[in-house]
């Protein structure tokens, strides 16, 4: 059995410490005067959305390395990041409507931010489906899909400034109340740590699968030479 790397262990310990400290900071942060207590969702909703963007960019970077240089490591990074994009996209798309139901009175609005975010999530799901079910060309097809998804990210981010939407604009974080910043940035750091640990573990799984594939070929060679 392989040992866990010290860096991974340290990151996991920091993330575990964050689970204890961050909720305390969030509870201690002042309540937003208009929305009240439900605004506390913001402290995890925004980091989840940011990690959806980060994962999509990582997936696109890996896909570019795979498409143009044939890098297997790039392909492993792409598929690992794509899964994380779907995971954090799901977190964003579930926590958002929970916040919206209380703040806006509706679960969902087909406005530019919400619709483009859903589209991004669906593109990352399509990446995974294409990779799994599109046969031999699946890896290249999904890599191309990842590039389109990366193009969608700036559109999702700027949609609230370009179009009139019910969603708050991009000025919320830069103009955040100073007393809310420690809670927000510690939650952000916690989620980044969690993302790093999950990505490292997912990459390890992908490397183990590559080794397993090589072993299967060895066994097939052995069976053929014995026959």
């Amino acid at each position, binding site marked *: *059995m392989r040992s866990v790397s010290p860096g991974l262990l340290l990151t996991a310990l920091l993330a575990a410490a964050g689970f204890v400290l961050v909720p305390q900071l969030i509870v201690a942060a002042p309540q937003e005067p208009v929305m*009240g*207590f*439900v605004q*506390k*969702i913001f402290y*995890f*909703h925004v980091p*989840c959305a940011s990690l959806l963007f980060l994962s999509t960019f990582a997936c696109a970077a890996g896909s570019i390395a795979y498409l143009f240089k044939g890098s297997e490591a790039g392909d492993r990074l792409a598929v690992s990041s794509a*899964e994380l994009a779907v*995971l954090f996209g*799901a*977190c964003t798309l*579930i*926590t958002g409507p*929970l*916040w919206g*139901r*209380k703040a806006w*009175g509706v679960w969902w609005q087909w406005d530019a931010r919400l619709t483009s975010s859903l589209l991004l999530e669906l593109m990352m799901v399509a990446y995974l489906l294409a990779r799994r079910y599109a046969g031999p060309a699946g890896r290249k097809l999904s890599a191309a899909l990842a590039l389109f998804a990366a193009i969608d990210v700036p559109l999702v981010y700027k949609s609230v400034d370009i179009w009139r939407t019910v969603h708050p604009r991009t000025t919320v974080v830069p103009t955040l109340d100073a007393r809310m910043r420690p809670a927000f940035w510690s939650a952000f750091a916690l989620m980044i740590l*969690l993302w790093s640990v*999950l990505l490292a*573990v*997912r990459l*390890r*799984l992908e490397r*183990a*699968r590559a*080794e*397993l594939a090589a*072993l*299967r070929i*060895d*066994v097939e060679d*052995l069976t053929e030479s*014995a026959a």
Partner: protein
Amino acid sequence: MRRLWLAVAALAGTFAPALARAQEFVKVEGAPRQEMPAAPFVAAAYSVIWVLVLAYVIVLARGIARVRKEAAELRARLDREAPPGRPRAAS
């Protein structure tokens, strides 16, 4: 043609006041307010995040365990069946 213009004028005369009223903002007074407690929404949001992350960690752990088990079996088979001159499977 004159009849058409008369019809248009009659329609405009009928609907113009309604359209003008529709453009005005009229605050609704005395409507019942729907007060929902915020705590269940906040609790649900946090729970969803940690449940999804935990489920993903379990899926990853099971995947790694399955791959390692199969790799160990294949290595054992290679070590057992490989002819003497052939290099052994790397562990």
